[in-house]
């Protein structure tokens, strides 16, 4: 990383301001604003078709915005000279010539950016593509290998900013862990990372901050803790020596309680459960925020955009009959 980043965590490297993109009557991106800071991995989370890719394409100038603006390090992307040296971009790992080898693809990128050939081998090693694999044509790559190559391509110019669209897509669990390590250490050196995903688990693993988008609108943003704290529908898992007494006490306070394994699932934040227990002198053996709280939040926030509405699948009507 060239430059003097990494110190200030309260400065924004990427600023998206009131971004809107319309296609006729359809609003793909609707007044979106968020910021990404150096030293942090920001996850851009939303279901398919929520507007993540359109937003990222606008950020790098491939799609014109209808209104609003994006600045990266104070610049419009198109005004950054030799932008590959400042902003690493991976929008679609499959969007490379299928007949080129991985090495040739990196060579073209390195030549465009004016980088020495040695950089190609460094990047191949960084993403664990062997010399033999680098000489294979892209059409023979698995999706996971394409993603690794795409990451290598994005990192070629030693940029201060990374913009990655669904980079974990197609990676196996070990690959996702590898990417988490890679992006964390990149951010620790002062880099700014924006990565998108439609899978909450991926983002939860990799990202420090989250921006949730649904139906083209930002529905929530912040780090994981503040997202959960702001959610009125937090759930806790609690186990007490006397579960019965605790359940009664919690119900009296208006929380809904259901048995879960050896304990209880409560529609309250852990702090409320703990307070209730303390007041009643009930001994707790386990108390934590329920796993999936964030998932519930995500599903709820994006509920109107989900495609999986519970409609029943009907058998096809035989031709000629009137339904």
């Amino acid at each position, binding site marked *: 990383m060239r430059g003097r980043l990494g110190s200030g965590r309260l400065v924004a*490297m990427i600023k998206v301001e009131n971004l809107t993109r319309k296609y006729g009557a359809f609003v793909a991106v609707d007044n979106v604003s968020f910021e990404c800071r150096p030293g942090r991995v920001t996850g851009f989370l939303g279901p398919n078709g929520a507007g993540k890719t359109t937003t990222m394409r606008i950020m790098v100038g491939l799609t014109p915005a209808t209104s609003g603006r994006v600045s990266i390090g104070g*610049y419009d992307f198109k005004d950054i000279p030799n932008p590959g040296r400042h902003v690493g971009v991976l929008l679609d790992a499959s969007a490379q*010539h299928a007949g080129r080898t991985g090495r040739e693809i990196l060579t073209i990128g390195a030549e465009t950016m004016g980088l020495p050939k040695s950089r190609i081998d460094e990047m191949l090693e960084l993403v664990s593509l062997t010399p033999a694999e680098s000489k294979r044509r892209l059409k023979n790559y698995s999706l996971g290998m394409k993603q690794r190559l795409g990451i290598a391509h994005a990192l070629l110019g030693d940029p201060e900013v990374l913009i990655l669209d669904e980079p974990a897509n197609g990676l196996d669990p070990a690959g996702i862990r590898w990417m988490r390590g890679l992006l964390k250490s990149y951010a620790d050196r002062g880099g700014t990372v924006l990565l998108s995903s439609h899978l909450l688990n991926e983002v939860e693993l990799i990202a420090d901050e989250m921006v949730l988008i649904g139906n083209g609108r930002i529905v929530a943003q912040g780090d994981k803790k503040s997202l959960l704290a702001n959610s009125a529908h937090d759930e806790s898992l609690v186990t007490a020596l006397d579960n019965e007494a605790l359940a009664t006490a919690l119900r009296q306070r208006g929380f809904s309680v259901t048995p879960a394994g050896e304990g209880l699932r409560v529609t309250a934040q852990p702090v409320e459960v703990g307070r209730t227990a303390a007041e009643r002198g009930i001994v707790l053996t386990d108390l934590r925020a329920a796993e999936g709280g964030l998932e519930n939040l995500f599903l709820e926030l994006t509920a109107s955009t989900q495609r999986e509405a519970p409609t029943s699948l009907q058998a096809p009507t035989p031709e000629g009959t009137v339904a």
Partner: protein
Amino acid sequence: MTTSTAPLTLDVSRTPAVPFLRLVRVEWRKMTDTRGGFWLLLITGILVLLTLLGVSLVGLLSDMGSTEIGFEDLYLQVMLIPVSLLVPVFAITIVSSEWGQRTNMVTFALEPSRLKVLLAKLVVAVLMAFATLVVAAICAAIANVVVAAGQDYSPSWSVDGQKLFVSVVVQVLAFVTAFGLAMCIISTPAAIAVYYIITLILPLIAYSILYFAFGWFRDVIPWLDFSYAATPFMSEFWPNGDPTTVDGLAWARLASATFLWLVVPLGVGLSRILRAEIK
């Protein structure tokens, strides 16, 4: 993230813009580093060799009597044909394959100035056109020496400057037209089909018949088709036997055909790509 903060500024002082010549070099590499490019060059090479071999053999073995064939004819009438058949496809794929393979997203993320990228590609297409001219000239020179030796006369090297100029213009224009059509049409197969229909199939099948059938077509076609517009500069006779003259009218027709096949496709294609959404 609600805290409003001063944006951080990238230090771009040590990164100059990507030099134009570097873009040209990269685009040349991208044109020739794929299997499609390799086969196109290989087949063209074979065609050139076969033509050279054929014309040399004919020159060596045939009884041509007193007719002497010189460099000019070998160059303009013979060797330019094999290098003109397939190579313009490069001028099409250098644009269209970026869309077909979706590498345009990578290309324009590394150089957001689409105009700069397209100009670099255009320069590569024109360089390719000149390369074909040079290859054809070298082969014509070899054939000239061989044929003259076989027929036992001293080879003629005289070339009419005007003919040479127009042949260079025709060749470069073919590449630029192909390039412009590719920008307008984007799809590789469709652009290739349209290019060959306009430059090869229509002139061979439709124009030649219409030319002899209708007087009005003889008046109109030199304004529209480049090879007819170029005829007065290349030949002493029109296809129907009328003598040609290089006058103001001939230049006006040449300008008209050039506008139609150079300026229009380039203009329409450029404005399309500069405004398009790159997906």
